[in-house]
Each structure stands twice: as C-alpha cells, then as structure tokens.
C-alpha cells in the first residue's frame, strides 16, 4: 500500500555536486519505501514548505563545508516547530546550535571521526538498541550532555552520537545512517507520532 507521508529533505550542502552524495542516498531510501518526499536546500526553503511537511530530515554535508554554521539563523524555525525532525550530522549540529541560544559557535567541538565506529545505544532509539557499527564523517560535534532539553541515547569519548528532545520528536544523529544503517531512516519515517 502506498504511504502518503510527505517528507521534507533539507540539504545543507554548499556545493550542488555534494547533494549526489548526501541527499540522493536518502531520496533513494524513501523512493524504495514508496514514501513521498521533496528535497530543498535550506537557502530556498519557505515557511510553506515546512508547513506542508509531515516530517523533516536535515542532511549532512562534506567535511570541509561549514557554511550552514554561518547561516544558522536560517534554521530558527526549528525551535518553534512541532514536526518530527531527524538531523543527520550537520543536521544534528544545527539542532544543537538552535537549542543553545547562548555562546552559539563556542558550543561546537572539534572532533574528527571518519569511517566505521561501534556506538552503544543505552536504550531504544528509533528501534535501535545496544551496540551498532555506524559510519562517521565529521570534523565537529555538539555536546548535548548538559542539555536540559535533550536526552543522550549514545555517546563515546564525550561526544554525543544520538540524541532526542525530551518533549518533541526531534532526533539528532552524528553518524550517517544512509551508509549501512538505512533502517534508522525508515524507522523515523514510519514511526507513529
């Protein structure tokens, strides 16, 4: 049966060519699930796009691309949104920055992780629990450990790897589930809220 979920995929890529690497794999997962979606770059996003979406996925970008941090004010809508949101890598950093109003840029930690790492999920996170091998591709991270609004579900070496807002369906993951953990995206899309 065809699902009618309308997913808004938000690109954070400065270079369009990077969208083939960070957006298309997510689109392909949703296509395979027969889930409706639209993809837009954050600079082209309107309030109408956000209101039309049932759920939102904010994707990652390349290691050298930090333009989204300079443009962080364009993501203020997240704070007042009641939509389920999944932030992947850059998307997780954006969520962290938006919910930490003070000392914004100082909240970014330098932490390079490239390749497969085993992360331990303390409890069920989008139907994932226990140890899981995940693919990392990042130079930065945000520390959610002292956050009053977010719960940390997985962390390693003081780096928050998977978080969820305590009262909203806002999820953040530092790793890239489109590489060998596609079920996490499917679980987010199919989750009843």
């Amino acid at each position, binding site marked *: 049966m065809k699902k009618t979920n309308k997913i808004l995929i938000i690109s954070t890529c400065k*270079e*369009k*060519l*990077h969208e*083939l*690497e960070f957006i*298309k*794999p997510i689109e*392909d997962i949703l296509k395979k699930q027969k889930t409706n979606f639209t993809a837009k770059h954050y600079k082209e996003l309107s309030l109408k796009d956000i209101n039309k979406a049932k759920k939102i996925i904010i994707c990652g970008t*390349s*290691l*050298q*691309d930090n333009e989204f941090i300079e443009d962080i004010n364009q993501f203020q809508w997240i704070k007042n949104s009641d939509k389920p949101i999944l932030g992947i890598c850059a998307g997780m950093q954006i969520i962290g920055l938006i919910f930490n109003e003070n000392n914004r840029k100082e909240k970014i930690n330098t932490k*390079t992780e*490239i*390749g*497969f790492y085993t992360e331990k999920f303390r409890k069920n996170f989008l139907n994932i629990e226990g140890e899981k091998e995940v*693919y990392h*591709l990042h*130079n930065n991270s945000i520390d959610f450990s002292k956050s009053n609004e977010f719960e940390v579900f997985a962390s390693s070496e003081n780096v928050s790897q998977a978080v969820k807002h305590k009262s909203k369906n806002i999820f953040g993951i530092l790793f890239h589930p*489109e*590489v060998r953990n596609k079920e996490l995206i499917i679980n987010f899309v199919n989750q009843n809220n």
Partner: protein
Amino acid sequence: MKLALLFSGGKDSTFAGYLAKKYNHEISCLITIASKNKESYMFHTPSINQTKNQAKAMNIPIILLETKGEKEEELKDLEKAIKQAIKKYKIQGVITGAVESVYQSLRIQKICNKLKIECFNPLWQKNQIELLEDLIKNKFGIIITGVAAYPLNEKWLGRKIDKKFIKEIKELNKKYKINPAGEGGEFETLVLNCPLFKNKLNILNKKISGEKNTWNSEVNLK
C-alpha cells in the same frame, strides 16, 4: 571549483568526472596511481597505463604515479600525487568514483581532510543497476577488461556494457550474488568513449591472460 579526478580509466571514475563537469566544475587534472600489486585493494589495475591515452582524448593533463601497492604505503603515494595537483594545478578538491567501497572512500576522505580540500563522491551509495543504465543513457562506450568471479570467464573480456549486459548481470546477481557494478572486484572496465572524450579510442592490440574465472585483458589504445 578546480578539481582533480582520481582516475582509473574505468566506468566509475569516468562517470564521476562527467557528473562533476555537468555540475559546472573544472577537471583541472587527472590523477592515476598505477599499482604494481595486482591484488591492490585501493587501485584498479588492468590496462592502467591507458589512462594516458584517455587523458589525451579528454585534453586534460594527467599525474601518473607508480606505487608498489603495499597496503598503507600506496596511500602515501596517493597523498603525494594529490599534493602535486594542489601545487601544479591549484585544485581545491578531488572527485572519486567510490560507490560502496568504504575501504577506498574513507582513506581518500582522510587524505583530503588532512590537506583541507573537498572530496566529491557523486556516485556514493548509488544503486548499481541505475548506475549501469545511466552509463548507457549518457552514451558511455565501455568494455570489460578483467573478471574475477564464478561464473564469469574469458568470454566476458571485451564485452560492451549495453542493455544485454545489464540483463545478464541482473540474472547473475540473483543467482550468484555478483555485484552488478563489479564493486566486489567481480569485473573491471575500460572506457573507450564518453561525452568527456574529444575522440573515440580504439583497441590497437590486447594480451589476454588468466585461468578458470580470473581473466585479464591488457589493452593498448589508440
């Protein structure tokens, strides 16, 4: 952006370069690492020296570096070649044809990150059948130059990637789990023509070697 294409002469790196150009980037140079180790995990080996002829057909300069192909040593050679490209051609990033291979991809990502340049992987996680169909749609002339999996044999050498090939490889995928894009090294390819080439290349001569289900065709192009 001025980019270097990590170029093996095969279908994936050539198509990745084609996409970079389509997205208005400049391919300032090609980088080929010719490995003496035929079992190299990092670099494609059959007919690797033909990349010089392919570079001529594209009218793009090439940096061709030889490596012994010893596991992590070959990465130092790749880094050396990328540094040369930064110095000589002022590149700001590289393009790779990585599809599924995390082994190759993360090593290149680490080198680019260390050198603070962009790393583009436009075929990353792409469906393999979709990739083959895109090659045909975009008029890529590709032949098979190596096979290394049952039930592939010497009869596959020289075959073109066309609709018939896709149909057969889909069946082999179902029956024997052959990766349709040859990602597991099941087959190797060589591009004779594509929209990046000013002229089509022809096979001047070839030397075939192998046994059972492992065959290579060393090709000379003109």
